[in-house]
């Protein structure tokens, strides 16, 4: 029902979606910051990261309270639509990677590429380049975290909870990332991305329906049903694509 605060089932799904989404984005941002810090020195890396975090916090402070005043059904329709698109994009990418049709997101390779890019740049521009690269990495990945937190949090009327979970995910991944340093490639990023994709599409489906005044049977219990449905579909698509790829290779051989 529109206007009813999301119940305990919705809260569990909300926490899972926000945590996984933030953890994945944090791994990507951390890879860039570590590459900048190791190559150019930590001062510019931290400055770029700090300015990006302040900018992101300002965005949350400005848009967070403003979103609360938007009528809930309109907000849920827009948020639902955005989450549907975003979730399907993540799921598509994760399915293609799992089935071997797209190269895996390799943090080690990205780290090496960033280091090479930074080393190739002239020494006179050193600090500026390091600052800009750290800023861009944290800001762009962080912007996706902000959008996820704001959209999921405000639509469920649990912005505080979503922000807290996001902060925990960011700190946790940050601490673990710094400890393991260059072993970020060991993080099962594609599996996490697949999980986030399933949850985002589930939320997108649920809120698009709520915004369009669809009455879901069982209210927010349907979120779990959607997650299960999309998980099965994802698994089936991966199995089918792997089988098709194997068959194509055999014919070619």
């Amino acid at each position, binding site marked *: 029902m529109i206007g009813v605060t999301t119940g305990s089932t919705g809260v569990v799904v909300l926490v899972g979606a926000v945590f996984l989404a933030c953890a994945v984005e944090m791994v990507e941002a951390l890879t860039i910051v570590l590459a900048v810090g190791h190559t150019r020195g930590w001062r510019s890396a931290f400055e770029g990261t700090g300015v990006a975090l302040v900018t992101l916090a300002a965005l949350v402070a400005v848009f967070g309270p403003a979103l609360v005043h938007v009528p809930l059904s309109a907000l849920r*329709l827009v948020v639902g*639509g*955005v989450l*549907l*698109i*975003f979730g*399907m*994009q993540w*799921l*598509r990418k994760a*399915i*293609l990677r799992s089935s071997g*049709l*797209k190269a895996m997101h390799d943090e080690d390779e990205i780290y090496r590429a960033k280091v090479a890019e930074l080393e190739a740049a002239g020494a006179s521009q050193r600090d500026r380049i390091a600052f800009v690269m750290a800023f861009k990495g944290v800001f*762009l990945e962080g*912007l*996706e975290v902000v*959008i996820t937190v704001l959209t999921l949090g405000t639509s469920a009327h649990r912005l505080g909870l979503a922000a807290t979970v996001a902060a925990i995910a960011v700190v946790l991944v940050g601490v673990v990332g710094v400890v393991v340093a260059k072993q970020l490639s060991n993080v099962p990023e594609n599996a996490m991305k697949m999980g986030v994709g399933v949850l985002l*599409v589930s939320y*997108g*489906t649920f809120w*698009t*329906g709520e915004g*369009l*005044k*669809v*009455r*879901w*049977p069982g209210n927010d219990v349907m979120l779990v049903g*959607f997650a299960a*449905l*999309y998980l099965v*579909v994802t698994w089936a*698509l991966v199995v089918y*694509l792997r089988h*098709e790829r194997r068959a194509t290779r055999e014919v070619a051989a």
Partner: protein
Amino acid sequence: MKPGERSPLAWRLIKGFGMFWWDFLIGDTPELFVAAIVIIGVVSLLSRVAHLNAVAVIALPLLAIVALALSIRRAVRGEKRRP
């Protein structure tokens, strides 16, 4: 504007903001953006105009699955066409 001259900061910020949303929502999968619009339109008709709630309940996730499958098929075909 003279060659080599940088555009004003406000314009660059607006352009950057627009580019971010373009990449975020459309990027290399415009079909998913179109699919979301179609899904909203179809479910809106079913729910608000025809008052067919049960059909809307089934149609929304079903259309999302069809959109995802078609987008993946497009990616696979694109991959096969590569030399």
